[in-house]
């Protein structure tokens, strides 16, 4: 596997979308994520070459990680279909078909590198065109966003148009000012009003066209699939209060930052293979894709600050071009870019799975695609699925490799597989018991890698 083919597993549309939305939302961990998105796969391609002998446990662990990552990738395609007016399942079926065909058609894999180059290139061209259309360089766009006194619904926003906007998943919005929403389609809204020191909860069942007035401080929970129209010129609920608040988004909790870093770094070590001396194109590709995604997020704040409202990773890519006069055609270019990156990422993940699953690799891949497609019909949060997939890879593949499992065997079992078994069991147990863990262990419930990675590492070190 060449380095470029290997890093394609990393530069998939779900990571690109996650970077874009975190930057656009002014998430406290956004700078760290952008840097980690470049550094983690670079660390992975520099890792010493490992022994990837096929084994049932390693193959199963990879299959679980790959299934979660595929589901994370399918979710935005389903969202994109819904945002473009089609049925959600249609986007998922198209995405599943696109990644299945290369596995069943002889020679269907040879377009993978072209898809990666075209996808990365198209993403960069889209950012350059956006810079031209807005007459703002990325740095100027950042300064412009940071100088905004408030983040308001854009004049071209679908959320203030007659048809309203669509919520991809259940979302709770906090309003900083009075607002009048209109239900475009029948829906139920839960409003939590602050009454002195008490919260008053009211459920409103609205018919199409019914308004809902909220006061400053109210929290409104909107169900997945609801269509809502907001008032023009008002602040975007849930967005940063101002450009300065977006720019100085505060600090992510230290332990949470470390957990995210461990997930990304060891997840990359598990999924991205080591590169040889001629793998110099891979680092450049990683840099270009990550920075293009971050730039798109900055432009989203300037042009369409409501781009994260639906909770979908796909929305910033679809709403930003329509918010910029003269850039509407960019939607097709961006969709093509994400599709190219998706084909390349899926091909790299398949190659990884086939390496570890041996003769049953193709069957394991088709099963992973099918399970991921069914799972993504539920409107899960793509970020949650991405972190779960990378966390599983970190615990079962990355940590044993980092502990130096190599090709060693214990009682006939590869040490890598024993470490994977330990890491995987702890990861699954913590994830399953998470809601029942005491409050002091909430961070472990949120990030099972914090226990699973040391468990896998210690088991390998102890048995070596």
């Amino acid at each position, binding site marked *: 596997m060449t*380095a470029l083919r290997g890093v394609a597993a990393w530069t998939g549309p779900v990571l690109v979308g996650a970077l874009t939305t975190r930057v656009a939302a002014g998430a406290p961990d956004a*700078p*760290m994520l*952008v*840097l*980690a998105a*470049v*550094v983690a796969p*670079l*660390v992975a*391609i*520099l*890792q*010493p070459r490992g022994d990837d002998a096929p084994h049932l446990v390693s193959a199963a662990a990879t299959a679980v990680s790959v299934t979660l990552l595929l589901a994370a990738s399918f979710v935005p395609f389903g969202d994109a279909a819904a945002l473009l007016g089609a049925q959600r399942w249609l986007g998922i079926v198209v995405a599943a078909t696109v990644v299945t065909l290369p596995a069943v058609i002889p020679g269907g894999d040879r377009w993978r590198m072209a898809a990666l180059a075209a996808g990365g290139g198209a993403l960069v061209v889209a950012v350059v065109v956006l810079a031209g259309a807005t007459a703002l360089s990325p*740095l100027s766009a*950042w*300064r412009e966003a*940071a100088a905004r006194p408030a983040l308001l619904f854009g004049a071209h926003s679908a959320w203030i148009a007659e048809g309203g906007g669509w919520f991809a998943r259940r979302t709770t919005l906090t309003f900083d000012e009075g607002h009048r929403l209109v239900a475009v389609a029948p829906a139920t809204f839960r409003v939590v009003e602050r009454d002195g020191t008490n919260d008053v909860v009211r459920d409103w069942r609205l018919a199409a066209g019914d308004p809902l007035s909220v006061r400053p401080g109210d929290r409104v929970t909107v169900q997945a699939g609801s269509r809502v129209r907001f008032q023009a010129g008002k602040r975007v609920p849930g967005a940063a209060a101002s450009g300065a608040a977006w*720019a*100085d988004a*505060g*600090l*992510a909790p*230290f332990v949470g*930052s*470390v957990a995210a*870093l461990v997930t990304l*770094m060891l997840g990359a070590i598990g999924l991205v293979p*080591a*590169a*040889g*001396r001629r*793998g*110099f194109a891979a*680092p*450049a590709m*990683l*840099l270009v894709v*990550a*920075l293009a995604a*971050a730039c798109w997020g900055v432009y989203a704040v300037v042009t369409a600050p409501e781009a994260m409202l639906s909770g979908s990773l796909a929305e910033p890519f679809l709403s930003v071009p329509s918010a910029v006069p003269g850039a509407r055609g960019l939607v097709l270019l961006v969709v093509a870019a994400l599709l190219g990156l998706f084909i390349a990422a899926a091909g790299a993940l398949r190659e990884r799975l086939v390496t570890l699953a041996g003769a049953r690799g193709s069957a394991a891949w088709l099963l992973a695609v099918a399970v991921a497609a069914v799972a993504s019909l539920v409107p899960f949060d793509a970020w949650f699925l991405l972190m779960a997939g990378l966390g599983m890879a970190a615990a079962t593949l990355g940590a044993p490799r980092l502990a130096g499992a190599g090709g060693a065997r214990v009682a006939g079992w590869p040490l890598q597989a024993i470490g994977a078994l330990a890491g995987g069991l702890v990861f699954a147990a913590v994830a399953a018991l998470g809601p029942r863990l005491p409050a002091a262990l909430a961070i472990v419930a949120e990030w099972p890698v914090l226990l699973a990675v040391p468990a896998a590492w210690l088991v390998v070190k102890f048995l070596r």
Partner: protein
Amino acid sequence: MSAVRWRWFGMLALTLLLAPLLLLAAVPGAPGTVRVAGVSLAWWYAGLVAPILATGVATALLVRCPE
């Protein structure tokens, strides 16, 4: 230096590039929010300087890897 040691050195060097950002987050007074030429220090580092540095370091280490 053996190829394995060379690669471990590279992994460590790249990982250390993340440390300043964690420090910026941990130090009181939020120095990461200080603006330099209109952009916060944290974004200058995480969005431009460190990624370019990491890419350069990784490329150099790969090309010169003794294997």
